[in-house]
């Protein structure tokens, strides 16, 4: 790795730059999903370390805004990391600091949501696809002419917009009527309060579609209104929701949970190591600068018992997970 007097590579001894120092920048800790993400990277990193591929994982993880995340990334650059894995607080506003990183010879990988910068390799699931799967399911459940409400995340947030635009299309095509769209801020308690309000003012609901992190709250609100049997709820692959789902299954409740994997960060780590080792992406595996990783799986009625059996012992906040194996990651490269 290059070093123009302050940039990267200071800690790498060997000729090919090994062992690598990796930085992880996470700008939001108020979510168990992010904790799981960090822990996953730490575990995978330990494997590489044993093999002498990497030496140090520098984690920057705190509640901060875009400006704070820029500072995080600059600190990582000043710490001479070889690559940075970043869960970005903004789709665009980190562009300039990513360019700085590239100029300092640091490779950057964005996870969870894609960024626009060409200096960055996005290693992400297709958020639109993720939304489409559950939207399809709900559309089928309520049928043409069905009335639904939507509990979204934060208006204007890129992941939110990407997901909602995809789902909106699905509902339009299927002839499902979206009566209202509310914001639940990806927050359980808010989601519950919002849904309670919607239930009172929209008595004709047939279904509700919500983004992840709120299905548990939505369910509790519907349950409190005594309408679990009338209203179809698109769920999520998290233990808290699945516990409720499991209990309600006795009363023929059905739902769906599409995995949004915190382990995407692990996939990105594998990709990063390959890139640092000088490998080039295989043709077709990368679209522009985005390497799309598959959505691991979807929990539904057919496979519920299996996944509940595997994950039921975890805490409520646990997200069902999945990541590329090292071999699968290697397939992305020539």
């Amino acid at each position, binding site marked *: 790795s290059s070093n123009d007097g302050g940039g990267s590579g200071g800690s790498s001894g060997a000729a090919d730059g090994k062992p690598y120092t990796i930085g992880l920048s996470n700008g939001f800790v108020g979510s168990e999903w992010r904790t799981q993400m960090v822990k996953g990277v730490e575990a995978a990193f330990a494997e590489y370390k044993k093999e002498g591929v990497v030496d140090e994982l520098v984690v920057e993880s705190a509640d901060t805004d875009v400006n704070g995340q820029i500072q995080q990334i600059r600190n990582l650059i000043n710490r001479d990391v070889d690559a940075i894995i970043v869960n970005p607080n903004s789709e665009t506003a980190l*562009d300039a600091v990513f360019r*700085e990183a590239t100029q*300092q010879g640091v490779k950057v990988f964005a996870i969870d949501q894609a960024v626009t910068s060409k200096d960055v390799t996005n290693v992400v699931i297709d958020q639109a696809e993720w939304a489409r799967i559950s939207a399809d399911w709900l559309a089928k459940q309520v049928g043409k002419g069905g009335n639904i409400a939507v509990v979204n995340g934060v208006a204007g947030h890129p992941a939110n917009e990407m997901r909602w635009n995809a789902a909106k299309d699905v509902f339009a095509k299927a002839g499902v009527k979206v009566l209202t769209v509310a914001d639940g801020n990806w927050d359980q308690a808010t989601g519950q309060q919002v849904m309670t309000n919607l239930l009172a003012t929209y008595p004709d609901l047939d279904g509700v579609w919500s983004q992840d992190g709120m299905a548990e709250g939505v369910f509790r609100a519907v349950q409190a209104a005594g309408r679990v049997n009338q209203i179809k709820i698109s769920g999520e692959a998290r233990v808290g929701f699945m516990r409720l789902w499991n209990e309600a299954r006795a009363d023929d409740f059905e739902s769906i949970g599409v995995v949004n994997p915190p382990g995407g960060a692990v996939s990105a780590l594998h990709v990063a190591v390959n890139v640092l080792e000088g490998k080039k992406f295989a043709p077709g595996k990368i679209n522009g600068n985005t390497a799309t990783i598959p959505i691991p799986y979807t929990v539904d009625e057919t496979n519920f018992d299996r996944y509940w059996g595997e994950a039921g012992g975890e805490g409520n906040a646990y997200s069902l997970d999945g990541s590329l194996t090292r071999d699968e990651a290697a397939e992305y490269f020539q």
Partner: protein
Amino acid sequence: MNTPARLREIRLPGVQLSGAATVAMLVAAVVVNSALQPNFWNSYALTSNFATFVPLVAIAVGQTVVVLSGGLDLSLGAQVTLASVVAVQIVDGQLDRFPLAAAAALGVGLACGALNGLVVALLRLQPIVATFATSFVFSGLALVVLPTPGGSVPLEVTTAYRDAVLGVPIALLAILVLALLWWVLRRHRLLRHIYAVGGDADAAYASLVPVTRTRVWAYVLGGLFAALSALAILANTGSGDPFVGNELTLASVAAVVIGGTALAGGRGGAGGSILGAIVLALVTNIVFFADVPTTYRQLVNGAVIILALALAGIPALQKRRPTA
């Protein structure tokens, strides 16, 4: 002298740090940071650090003006956001449109400041909650202007922001310009009136100070500095984001207090706030380079900030009023 000094001091709920204490904190932060970060003094680290400081420094100067007038502006961050998205929509990646975009940003700051001034000075709403309310208006408008992140700042601007002339980072020059602006304002009648109104509005009113107009101006100046902060953010980020400035608000208040300005108004100055903002940013760096485990980083960060604020309680460091 009928009142002993001890009693007189209780009148002032917002204690202030002396200039000496703020400078001491800055020196300590720089020393510790450079000890922990081996490349602290090289050019990339230096320019990137200063580039990081500017947005908070600018908004802290704006907050200082408002606080000095006896108010508080919880909408400054939202103003930064709104000004930045308006500017980015106008500039659209073209350098020749940058002056227009910058002017528009300043216009937005001015308009937001005027609205706050109207609400606080004319309608006499309590500043903390009134500006909390206007912050919703501004962030909502930001979403209208730029519904999802996007737009780009001309490369020349982002590059220049990271450049240095004769080894002096442009971002450092930007901070010096902010300090100079403050120095000029300080010599103007308006700032004198702002101090008077913040110190004792009734007395100022009875002494012919146009209190309402002065208060409006304080918020307008706050908005103008928020707009400058927005420009720095655009140069720093290279793109627009409808949430970008919101969280600067509370940090700006912390910077003001660390810098020795009393939240009660009427005492202090932006010089301290500039240093205070830099101290705040350096603390984050220190906690990072000291390898504090991630889990404890926010705890240590918070504790260090409280400790810095607590320096205000050490009498030796306090600006004591001479007793008559």
